[in-house]
């Protein structure tokens, strides 16, 4: 199975030109998934645009770890920071953006020859939106390596989200599956129904606010701007999703999940892991390392 092509197809089937790969944490195979999708799109002759939210954008304690360099094929359009642009191979510099990143100003380039590049982008959601729009104006497909809190840039657009999860950061397979399922549930919050009574939340729906709504037995739609505004985890998230009618103004479209069953500290049985994620999320679930899709 060509996993990258399958994921690309899943995104194209809903008309998405932007694919945002988000993960439950670091080392969960996000870059591997992105690379597979990129290779598939490039092999199909598509003009591909690539971006990352920037090295400091990870929702993780390990903020300063550099991202892996990607081998970019010729004619790939990319966004990166000036400080991350390699001296060689020289790329065509398309545009210098006023956006700033920790590694310098953001620029758009196009590879003339293949080479290793490090992607870096703006740390803000509005900056990500601008980068995606710029790349879309020059590309057939835009693939973004992004942290969950930046996926809001896609909300309400025709973009697709791929959720990557893995053995890293979860003590057991059950825990990892629960993490992936919780993230998918959060990102798939449905659009609100304008004809039904609703409470609009200004900003994030916090655990305290959710507890207050639960305590008074709220039955109206609880509407946030986009799924990333649901700042709930663990038991609070479980309760809120079970008992509140959570909705959003600008929904996201999650099209697939990928798994990485290997982590430095543990491994999961890959077939069971993929099947469990597929069952918990009801999403097409792929294992890039195994070249397979869950049954």
């Amino acid at each position, binding site marked *: *199975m*060509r*996993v*990258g092509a399958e994921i690309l197809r899943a995104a194209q089937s809903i008309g998405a030109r932007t694919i945002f790969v988000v993960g439950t944490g670091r080392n969960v195979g996000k870059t*591997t998934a992105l*690379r*597979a999708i990129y290779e598939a799109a490039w092999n199909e002759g598509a003009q591909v645009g690539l971006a990352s939210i920037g090295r400091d954008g990870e929702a993780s304690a390990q903020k300063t770890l550099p991202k892996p360099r990607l081998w970019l094929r010729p004619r790939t359009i990319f966004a990166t920071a*000036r400080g991350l*642009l390699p*001296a*060689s*191979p*020289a*790329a*065509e*510099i*398309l*545009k*210098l953006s006023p956006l700033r990143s920790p590694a310098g*100003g953001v*620029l758009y380039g196009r590879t*003339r*020859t*293949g*080479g290793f590049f490090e992607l870096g982008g703006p740390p803000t959601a509005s900056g990500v939106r601008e980068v995606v729009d710029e790349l879309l104006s020059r590309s057939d497909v835009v693939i973004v390596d992004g942290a969950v809190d930046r996926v809001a840039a896609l909300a309400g657009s025709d973009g697709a989200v791929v959720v990557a999860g893995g053995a890293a950061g979860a003590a057991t397979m059950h825990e990892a599956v629960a993490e992936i399922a919780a993230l998918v549930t959060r990102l798939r919050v449905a659009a609100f129904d304008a004809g039904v009574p609703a409470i609009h939340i200004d900003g994030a729906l916090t655990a305290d606010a959710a507890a207050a709504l639960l305590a008074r037995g709220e039955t109206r739609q609880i509407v946030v701007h986009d799924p990333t505004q649901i700042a709930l985890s663990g038991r609070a998230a479980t309760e809120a999703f079970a008992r509140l009618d959570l909705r959003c103004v600008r929904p996201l479209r999650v099209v697939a999940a990928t798994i990485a*069953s*290997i982590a430095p500290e543990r*491994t999961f*049985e*890959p*077939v069971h892991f993929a099947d469990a994620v597929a069952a918990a999320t009801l999403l097409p679930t792929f*294992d*890039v*390392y*195994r*070249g397979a899709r869950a049954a």
Partner: protein
Amino acid sequence: MKPQPLLDAASADVLGFKWLARAIAPASPYGDRAFSELRPFGVGQEAEAQSRAQRIAEFATRVAARLEAIRAELVELPDATSAIARASMGDVLADPSFLELRRFCATVERIDDLIADSSAQPPLSNDAVSAVGAALAIGQVEDDRFYLADAFDASLATARANLARAQAELDAVRGRECAQVALELGREELGSDEFIVMRAELRGALPAGVRVQREAPTYLLCALDYGEAALAALQRRDEAADAVAEREERVRAELSSTVRRNAAGLNATTIALGDLDLMVAAARFTQSCECVPAEVSSKTVLEFERARFLPLEAELVAAGRAFTPLDLALDHAAVLTGPNMGGKSVCLLTCGFLALCVAFGLPVPAARARIGLFEQIAWLGLGREGHVGGLLSSFALEVLALKEILSRDLPRLLILVDEFARTTTPHEGKALQVALLGRLRERRACGMLATHLEGVAAAAGVRHFAVRGLRGIPAPPATDNVDDALATLAASMDYRVAEVGAEDASRADAIALTALLGIDQKFVDAAYRALG
């Protein structure tokens, strides 16, 4: 643009300094730098101040139709100063810097075309801009991109061709290896550098070249080593890539050297661009606010016809109303009287605003003006309170502010005094105002003191101006709406200022205005009865 030492912070706030600074703000980083250095002209620089205002007005006229086009170019102008500075220090610049410099040179040429027939502005371009622009033009792709193109160096083209061949060879060899292993594992592709082989799916040994990185009970995490042929191809590719990198860096070094040799000329253009940006911003201000250059006098004089206080005019226009232009001829100190809401304060503000414009070499919002340069423009009135400490009465604050203004002891003072000592008894308030006017006269200061107190001008022996005031007592509007009341007032009020006799009594029309603003008739009648 700094108001000090001409204005203290409080006076700057009240007199519209920030409004003016926004109105003449430049568009480019070069303009920003020049703007930050902008200082008021000092006494003795009358000719320079007038010359600048005239050049701005002339520029505004000559390039009137192209001002916005020039501004648009300036907005998009990249900041090349950092690249020029680094090249000057011997740094080898990176490609984004070359794009900035190329765009810089191209934009300068376009701006020169736009200002070609303006004698007020010399061309920006010079030999350095031409040389660097030409050197970098080789890398220009379409209108606005840059690539370290093969055409920069014949050996670069050769090196890149070699790299392309080496890469193709590596891709082919490595591709065959991957395809062979995928075939042996029964897959369409390996998918990633690391891949999983399920033990249950493995028939026999792993394919040749596959290295186990990690073993798990049900699967193996593997990687495909480079075979002999692929390793050799990889080595050739890396050598070819190194050769390309070396030649690319050589081209960059040569281009950086060109920038370094022309740095002085490029820097001169950045400075000229800053000046032009200020000129364009001032010309837009002149054009949109219908300003004219004032005659800048060597005397402490403030004369103008049909002058406007632009910050208030902008507010009035937004509210659908108009500013009544003012005429005034002021030298030394004078008194201004008039009714409440008749525009005394606005007259003072107009004086200050015009003096401010002249100090910065700007055309003024008036039909004609003759204004001197001052060493200090001071406002004493409502609006200063926030700048002095908290436990003092408003009278104490006012006195301390006056003390601060007078303590600077600058001979060229323009002071605008709005109802000084209004919070004490009329008797002592008048005495203090007369004393202040006496002090201003001693110092030969130019100033205007607005007051409701009678006989101040006569007692101080200074000229007396008055707002003409209500043409009649207007009937309150039918509605209780403040905007309607203000519109009625505006229709009835003659805001113009004229000189009157020193002994002329001022009219406040305060009770009529109270009625107009909606206080009940019983209250108003009681006030008239008390007035006798």
